[in-house]
């Protein structure tokens, strides 16, 4: 995209409002989403956001108002009810967690869609814009919306900071926490409520369908880069904020695309890059490490094969053909490059066109690597 769009954040008032709003909601959902991910409740966010839709519709039907606080309150109430319903079903019946989640998600979302259609069929025009809650439209964020997002988000983050050690205990070892006297069920409800807040403040900009990505993806990405909760949570917040701003700016200035999908693409890019590239847990560094180790092992095998040949045919010939070594190796194609590496180190020497012998230095290195009792052959 053209860089001009991003400099306009600082000059264009509307764009600045949108960027501030999406940064705030991205930070809050990323930070609190970390706890959902660590507690393996990532899907719960999906259910909560879908379940919020009928709440938005009912809040509008009852009040006739589109004030952000009214709609957010309706969304929070419905999202919370849906989450509570899942927990209750799992607790009271033999229905499994994923089944309960799927049921509640689709029932609430279905009711929400019916109500939304009903509202849109009404003759008056006051309802215009309510359907943006499906896929989100960050461009519709006004000053008052941003204030609501920032206010509720700050409350949620403050509660998280105050209850930091209790929430850590809940996420890592709730049984131990219970024996210390902390009411774990109560803390569970508090954390769930905070996550509900994080979700509902994002619905206008990101939409109910894709909001759960803002809860899950930044946290999954942040986990890749650090082994400390105190770093993971703010980092997930930063990832969420960056994706939110980037996605919102792209969608509202250039293309008028719904914001939700664009933000999700941004946050997914961050998550995929983190999964692949993060230094310790990333797939690519892991692959590099295992390849390096594999090569070291094969190099040692070639060296030890060469020594075995030397012992069997002592004094017969100055060198041994690489072809023989290839026959001895499990991976024949790797023999020549390994021989080259070994000869670079001075551990083997070339005696003919493709004939090799182990050097004194190579013998010593092999002894050292295999240890004193390493002569297993």
């Amino acid at each position, binding site marked *: 995209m053209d860089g001009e769009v991003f400099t306009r954040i600082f000059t264009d008032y509307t764009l600045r409002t949108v960027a501030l709003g999406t940064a705030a909601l991205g930070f809050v959902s990323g930070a609190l989403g970390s706890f959902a991910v660590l507690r393996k409740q990532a899907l719960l966010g999906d259910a909560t956001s879908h379940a919020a839709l009928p709440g938005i519709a009912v809040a509008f039907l009852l009040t006739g108002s589109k004030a952000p606080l009214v709609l957010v309150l309706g969304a929070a109430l419905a999202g919370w009810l849906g989450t509570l319903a899942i927990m209750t079903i799992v607790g009271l019946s033999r229905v499994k967690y994923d089944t309960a989640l799927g049921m509640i998600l689709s029932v609430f979302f279905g009711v929400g869609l019916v109500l939304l259609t009903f509202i849109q069929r009404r003759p008056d025009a006051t309802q215009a814009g309510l359907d943006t809650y499906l896929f989100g439209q960050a461009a519709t964020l006004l000053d008052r919306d941003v204030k609501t997002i920032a206010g509720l988000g700050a409350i949620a983050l403050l509660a998280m900071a105050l209850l930091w050690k209790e929430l850590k205990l809940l996420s890592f*070892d709730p049984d131990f926490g219970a024996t210390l006297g*902390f009411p774990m069920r109560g803390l569970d409800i508090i954390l769930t409520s905070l996550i509900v807040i994080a979700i509902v403040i994002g619905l206008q900009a990101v939409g109910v369908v894709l909001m759960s990505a803002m809860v899950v993806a930044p946290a999954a990405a942040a986990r890749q880069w650090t082994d400390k909760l105190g770093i993971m949570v703010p980092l997930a917040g930063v990832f969420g904020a960056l994706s939110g701003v980037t996605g919102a700016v792209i969608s509202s200035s250039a293309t008028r695309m719904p914001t939700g999908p664009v933000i999700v693409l941004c946050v997914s890019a961050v998550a995929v890059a983190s999964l692949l590239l993060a230094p310790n847990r990333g797939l690519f560094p892991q692959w590099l490490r295992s390849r390096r180790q594999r090569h070291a092992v094969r190099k040692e095998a070639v060296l030890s094969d060469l020594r075995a040949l030397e012992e069997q045919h002592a004094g017969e010939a100055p060198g041994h053909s690489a072809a023989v070594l290839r026959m001895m190796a499990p991976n024949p194609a790797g023999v020549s490059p390994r021989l080259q590496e070994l000869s670079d180190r001075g551990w083997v020497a070339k005696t003919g066109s493709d004939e090799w012998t182990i050097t004194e230095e190579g013998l010593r290195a092999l002894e050292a690597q295999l240890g004193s009792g390493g002569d297993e052959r």
Partner: protein
Amino acid sequence: MPETSRRADANPKADSTAVEVADLTVAYRDKPVLWDIDLSVPMGVLMAIVGPNGAGKTTLIRSILGLVRPTAGQVRILGKPYAKQRRLVGYVPQRGSVDWDFPTTVLDVVIMGRYGELGWIRRPGAAERRAAEEAIEKVGLTDLADRQVGQLSGGQQQRVFLARALVQDSLVYFMDEPFQGVDATTERAIIDILRTLRDEGKAVIVVHHDLQTVEEYFDWVTLLNVQRIASGPVDEVFTDSNLRAAYGGRAALFSRELAEQRERAKGGDGP
């Protein structure tokens, strides 16, 4: 080198009862897991709870700790209901009960043992850190204190949980299979720490599954199989007939091995 326990003043008389369980019954969906358990454990003992799989060993300590709601029965710790005595009770859960991939360090987990004392909202500070470092040293993990807990071996993770219980500085300890998945050296290190706790006059109650080591490690034992089979000092209670009662037919093997062990012990060159 006397142990300077923060609770030295609160140390009760050695003859007081650490744990008193009366008529404890626990059922899952109409099926009794524990049936009418009576139990009395004095202070200053190291007690094993043994019994076959599904005997309710873990459920027994979880219901004493209020993690499982019993159908009936009472639990008293040092003469008062458990809820009033939490601060005097330490707990080592099964290693498999948490996700070790959690982003947290050894030091961080051990400090959790002080959370109960800290209460709501207050953050751990230098004093908590010091106590944790001390406990980490006791279990021999000082070099690994800043490691993420998932990078540790099973035995090391078990020692992290033990260190967390040590910083609780409790009088009565419950441990769920602290020897599970640890090597012989770690097992010795752990049992040494448990003996030290006992010698300080504390009560240590351990769910244990290796009958071979009961006589060597413990001075008290409770044999459990849904019902309480027997409970008391090892040399009185850990008998062939009690083992057979707890383990049914499977005990034949164990009791033969035990008889051999005793023969060897009598011969003078026992373990």
